[in-house]
């Protein structure tokens, strides 16, 4: 076969995984049923902050169909540990962050609305629900700490955390930044709240646990983005079962967006309860529970100042942020407003001096952790808003101000003042392309047209950068990570010549079964249908770190690339043996092992078969079999970057914002499957535009959740969004074997500031906090007109 027939790299191959989903044959956690299964329902705190004086389960225990009612006290009796946070942050005074015990179920105090207090297990879901309503909990209500901006002067929640402060972190050079501000001819400043979001993967979290007393093996099927990490935490920290007796399976998972990275109370309690009662236990969250108890995202209060000279050159950036951690530190919460945020504050610009301080605080709200972008959208919003504000204040075109400050192609590798070293990029190219695609130069004609029909029109630019492919274990370790951040890949060439690929990455919508198959098929010169990708089961592959931070292709794909190299090396040895020559004389090309300067060759399939039939092998030199694995630890993050441009038209009588054009030009390095990459961009844009226009998690002053259903929390629907205008530029990553970067989060990182820059442009105001709802926009227009 020719190269064009075989190699599908860079082509929009249709997805291998689609068929099961479009025919109703997917297998999600709640689709799994086991013989003799019971159903779990959680009793949750109706108060955000209270002492628990007594839990009376007697009526529930006597109710019809009830198998068991277990409480936090039962967990404590079994000496189970709390849920840990995997990233240790050191405060600027040298002290370690405060990590209060995060109990699987509350014992003597509840700290957020919906915190689990007891688990009721019954023969049917209805019986469990009915019985759960009869559990009597005697609470003594306490004042709730709600807003992060007021938390440090409010009632103390945890004994370990005075002033409700988890850590006070800093990055960058304070003195150099102060000096830069003293030289500035212009300073732009802004106070903003990056709105709190609820992730809302459409599949709710779920778990079904099965214990086999004969072998003492516990299997947990669950909605996890990283089943091996879940197993590690459940074994090493919570100590439910030893690691080698615990299997965690993530079957088809219906979206994650960060919210399924964490190890949560409910899945943990389900697994533990299963061992206690000796029968399978199934739990599936309803949507109301997801609103209450999935880890939320964002919720930063920030003050930012940008110092410029009279030409608009950036001299310094100063940021103070208060980040809401919620009631407890979720699995990776502490890293989000620090290493995934402060380190990104250089953006695409050569700002010589940057200093950032972040206070992380506890409140009586659900834990806050990674949500699509995790820290980088917060950084991008702040930089891209302050840049546009500065441009407008100084009467410089926002595109031109960005261009003046870009890190230039010849500056790479570029060391920022905030720890990261960018390997490559070309920001001017993305900007130019986006300006052209969006018709930026002709904007004023369109604006006049809108004005003549009584509408307002605005255009907003955002030039974002992100760090993904999280990333070098040495760096992560030096920054406080409790785990390494490599990825594993294993390739099993079967005797018939087809290939089983096992990856530690986990796909919950990203299309790995296709992209990774393309990668391996192209390398071996075999049809893509001969490659099957397996993921999400701790019993089938050694170990893996899972999927988050847009890391799968850059780290997981690179691991497979290294494993494929090893297969080819071994294949050359086998081929050399078969053709009675030395391995150095074998070239592998397009599915054939060829003896150089001869016409002798063996196909990939022939070599595969010979690997398992070693009748005449020199066994001291050549082992049977053709399976290789690799653990790939990257040298650096990858740095996707791009330019998003949003154009809006606003009806001043209603405040309704219509996005009339959204252009996204992204540089993700080399692309394996453009269709899948564009799909990732579309989804990210929808979430970013959702944050900017619609979505907002609101607790009232007493800590009750006002946005606890789809009736109140405004999800982007089909008629809220436009079709998107997307394209790519390409500067290959310099330090991984594929030249790839990662594309999963960029849409959500780049788009929110583009939207707000457009809306503030249309109205003629400096800033508006997200979400820019019709009411807020209408009021701003009225105020502007009255002024």
């Amino acid at each position, binding site marked *: 076969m020719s190269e064009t027939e075989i190699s599908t790299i860079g082509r*929009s191959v*249709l*997805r291998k*995984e*689609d*068929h*099961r*989903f*479009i*025919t*109703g*044959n*997917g*297998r*999600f956690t*709640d*689709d799994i*049923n086991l013989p003799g299964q019971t159903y779990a329902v959680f009793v949750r705190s109706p108060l955000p902050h209270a002492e628990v004086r007594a839990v009376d389960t007697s009526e529930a225990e006597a109710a019809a169909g009830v198998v068991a009612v277990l409480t936090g006290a039962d967990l404590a009796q079994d000496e189970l540990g709390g849920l840990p946070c995997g990233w240790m942050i050191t405060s600027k005074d040298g002290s370690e962050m405060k990590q209060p015990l995060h109990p699987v179920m509350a014992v003597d105090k509840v700290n957020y609305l919906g915190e689990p207090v007891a688990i009721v297990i019954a023969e049917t879901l*209805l019986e469990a629900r009915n019985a759960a309503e009869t559990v009597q909990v005697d609470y003594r209500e306490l004042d709730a700490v709600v807003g992060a901006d007021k938390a440090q002067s409010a009632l103390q929640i945890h004994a370990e955390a005075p002033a409700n402060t988890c850590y006070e972190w800093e990055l960058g050079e304070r003195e150099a930044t102060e000096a830069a501000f003293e030289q500035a001819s212009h300073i732009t400043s802004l106070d903003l709240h990056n709105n709190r979001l609820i992730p*809302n*993967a*459409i*599949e*709710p979290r779920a778990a079904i646990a099965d214990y086999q007393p004969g072998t003492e093996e516990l299997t947990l099927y669950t909605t996890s983005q990283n089943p091996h990490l879940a197993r590690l935490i459940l074994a090493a920290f919570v100590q439910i079962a030893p690691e080698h007796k615990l299997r965690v399976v993530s079957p*088809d*998972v*219906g*979206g994650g*967006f960060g919210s399924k990275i964490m190890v949560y109370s409910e899945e943990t309690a389900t697994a533990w309860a299963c061992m206690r009662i000796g029968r399978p236990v199934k739990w599936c969250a*309803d*949507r*109301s529970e997801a609103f209450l108890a999935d880890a939320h995202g964002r919720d930063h209060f920030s003050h930012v100042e940008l110092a410029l000279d009279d030409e608009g050159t950036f001299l310094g950036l100063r940021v103070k942020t208060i980040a809401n951690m919620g009631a407890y530190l979720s699995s990776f919460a502490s890293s989000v407003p620090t290493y995934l945020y402060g380190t990104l504050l250089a953006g695409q610009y050569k700002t010589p001096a940057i200093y950032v301080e972040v206070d992380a605080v506890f409140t009586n709200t659900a834990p806050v952790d990674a949500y699509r972008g995790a820290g980088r959208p917060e950084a991008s919003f702040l930089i891209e808003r302050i840049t546009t504000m500065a441009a407008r204040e100084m009467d410089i075109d926002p595109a031109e101000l960005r261009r003046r400050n870009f890190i230039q192609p010849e500056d790479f590798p570029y060391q920022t003042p905030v720890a990261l070293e960018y390997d490559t990029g070309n920001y001017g190219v993305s900007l130019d392309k986006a300006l052209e695609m969006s018709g930026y130069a002709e904007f004023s004609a369109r604006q006049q047209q809108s004005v003549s029909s009584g509408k307002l029109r605005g255009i907003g630019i955002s030039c974002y950068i992100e760090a993904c492919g999280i990333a070098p274990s040495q760096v992560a370790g030096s920054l406080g990570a409790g785990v390494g951040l490599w990825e594993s890949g294993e390739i099993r060439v079967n005797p018939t010549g087809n290939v089983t690929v096992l990856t530690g990455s986990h796909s*919950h*919508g*990203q*299309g790995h079964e296709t992209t990774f198959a393309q990668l391996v098929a192209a390398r071996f010169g075999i049809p893509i249908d001969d490659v099957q990708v397996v993921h999400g089961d701790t019993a089938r592959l050694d170990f893996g770190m899972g999927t988050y931070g847009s890391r799968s292709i850059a780290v997981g794909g690179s691991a497979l690339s290294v494993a494929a190299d090893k297969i080819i090396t071994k294949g050359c040895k086998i081929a050399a043996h078969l053709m009675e020559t030395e391995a150095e004389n074998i070239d592998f090309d397009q599915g054939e092992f060829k003896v150089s300067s001869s016409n002798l060759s063996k196909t990939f399939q022939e070599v595969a078969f010979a690997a398992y039939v070693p009748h005449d092998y020199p066994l001291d030199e050549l082992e049977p079999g053709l399976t290789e694995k690799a653990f790939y630890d990257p040298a650096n993050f990858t740095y996707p970057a791009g330019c998003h441009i949003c154009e809006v038209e606003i009806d001043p009588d209603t405040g309704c914002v219509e996005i009339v054009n959204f252009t996204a030009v992204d540089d993700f390095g080399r692309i394996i499957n453009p*269709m*899948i990459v*564009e*799909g990732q961009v*579309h*989804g*990210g*844009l*929808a*979430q970013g535009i959702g944050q900017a226009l619609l979505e907002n998690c609101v607790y009232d002053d007493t800590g009750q959740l006002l946005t606890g*259903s*789809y*009736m109140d929390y405004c*999800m*982007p*629907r*089909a*008629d809220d*969004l436009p*079709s*998107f205008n997307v394209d790519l530029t390409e500067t290959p990553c310099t330090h991984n074997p594929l030249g790839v970067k990662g594309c999963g989060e960029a*849409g959500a990182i780049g788009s929110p500031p583009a939207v707000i820059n457009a809306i503030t442009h249309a109205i003629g105001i400096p800033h508006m906090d997200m979400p820019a709802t019709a009411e807020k926009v209408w009021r701003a227009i009225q105020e502007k007109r009255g002024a």
Partner: protein
Amino acid sequence: MSIDITLTVNGREINTEVSPETTLVQLLREHLLLTGTHVGCDTSQCGACTVHLDGRAVKSCTVLAVQADGSEVTTIEGIAVAGGLHPMQAAFHQCHGLQCGFCTAGMIMSAIDLVTREDDLDEATIRKGLAGNICRCTGYHNIVKAVQMAAGQMEGRGHE
């Protein structure tokens, strides 16, 4: 208390007893093990549970099983035509109209209903017609393209 009901599901006659509070989606998923239909919310908002009841799209989380007595129900498992996919299924695949696949069954069932009911399917009509189904992955861009593609291929559209 159990109630005896008879209905046709994907062309197969089903006679069963259900308790009065059993919803149609529970009947489908738990009694008949048709797990292609999903539940994504508890307020009838997300549309993941959409099926056809006597030819019209309904959210099966808010239909009681007893209300379906005597009716004809079609789920995602029942729409493929002999020897191949329904044009809407094929279009979702061709246009990359799905990512995680969880909302997909409901989205396809709603989209088929929309195309069957509406003659003039411009982009705005499709977006409005699918507003009862939430997708968190795709940003709807490719779903709209899929519905446009399928609309051109489905026979008998525009007629109830």
